[in-house]
């Protein structure tokens, strides 16, 4: 079972990295968006392997669904059929590649340097006390979605409410920003009783 998990993790990771590289390297914006979708879908597979099924499904819906669809709509609106000059020529490719490579190198060095035990449920003392979820740290059973919901709506209630408020504000703001002020609004509603 563990070997299967490891193999699946390696497969999903390599697909995710290929997707990320394709996102960087593709010139066509649509191809880059599809590479982004590949990356996100395989990342959702990684979420499943990490016992986070709700996050995986939400990622597929929000990232690979909604974001890509909105992206394609904007692209249809704004992109011309041929490749533009700003798609062909990148800005500062060498220096930005150096910056990103050094960041990745620093992060990987920092992660691999950490010598603490990384077995997932081996040490029961590490976990921060989280109320009900960690009450049985020795049991190897995976947390269910209902546990996640219980934690979200008890311990992290204010964060979830804040996220809802942010969503509302973003909706109103997006409608306001995208509205074209130069076009006069048709006055239809004022005549009706």
């Amino acid at each position, binding site marked *: 079972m563990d070997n299967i998990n490891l193999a699946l993790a390696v497969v999903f990771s390599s697909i995710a990295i290929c997707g990320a590289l394709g996102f960087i390297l593709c010139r066509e914006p649509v191809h880059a968006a599809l590479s982004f979708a590949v990356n996100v879908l395989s990342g959702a597979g990684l979420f499943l392997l990490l016992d986070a099924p709700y996050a995986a499904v939400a990622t597929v819906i929000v990232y690979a669904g909604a974001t890509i669809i909105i992206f394609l709509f904007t692209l249809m609106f704004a992109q011309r059929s041929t490749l533009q000059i700003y798609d062909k020529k990148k800005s*500062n490719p060498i220096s930005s590649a150096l910056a990103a490579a050094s960041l990745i190198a620093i992060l990987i060095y920092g992660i691999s340097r950490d010598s603490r035990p990384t077995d997932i449920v081996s040490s029961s003392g590490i976990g921060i006390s989280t109320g009900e979820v960690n009450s049985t740290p020795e049991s190897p059973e995976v947390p269910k979605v209902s546990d996640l919901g219980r934690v*979200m709506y008890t311990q992290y209630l204010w964060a979830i409410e804040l996220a809802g408020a*942010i969503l509302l504000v973003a909706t109103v703001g997006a409608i306001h920003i995208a509205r074209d002020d130069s076009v006069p609004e048709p006055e239809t509603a004022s005549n009706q009783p």
Partner: protein
Amino acid sequence: MTNLYLFIGAIIFGCGLLGFLSRRNLILMFLSLELMLFGVSLNFIAFGKLHGNLGGQTFAILILTVAACEAALALAMIVSLYRSRGSLDINVWQRLRENDSPSKRTDAITMIPSDDSDHQTENSYGDLPKLTPAGHDPLSFPVEVDSRQEPAGLA
């Protein structure tokens, strides 16, 4: 084993950073931001599993919410920016820089020409507000306000 996920998260974050720095298309820069957020949420879920609690998943879902908000707002802004210049090139907007900061030679093409499209005075587009340069004493650097555009009640 968990280190693998942390590595993947770091690599995805770095790819997003590289995309953000090197792309010139506004929409693709925004997608690079989404990629960076995705790498971060992968890290959060891996840490949550490592510590055996569900805070990491909750935080990843929060990041997902913020990413959705960012998608809506950023694409609304991109649509409105595209409407005013007719191009998705980020270099078109380098006219927003300070007057004395160095100009970058660019091949950016604006599809909708402004009033003074012959580039004689570079930072004087009609639809941009005229502001005092940052970092200067506003009294010693008065803004040359075009008298035709000045509102009558201000004087």
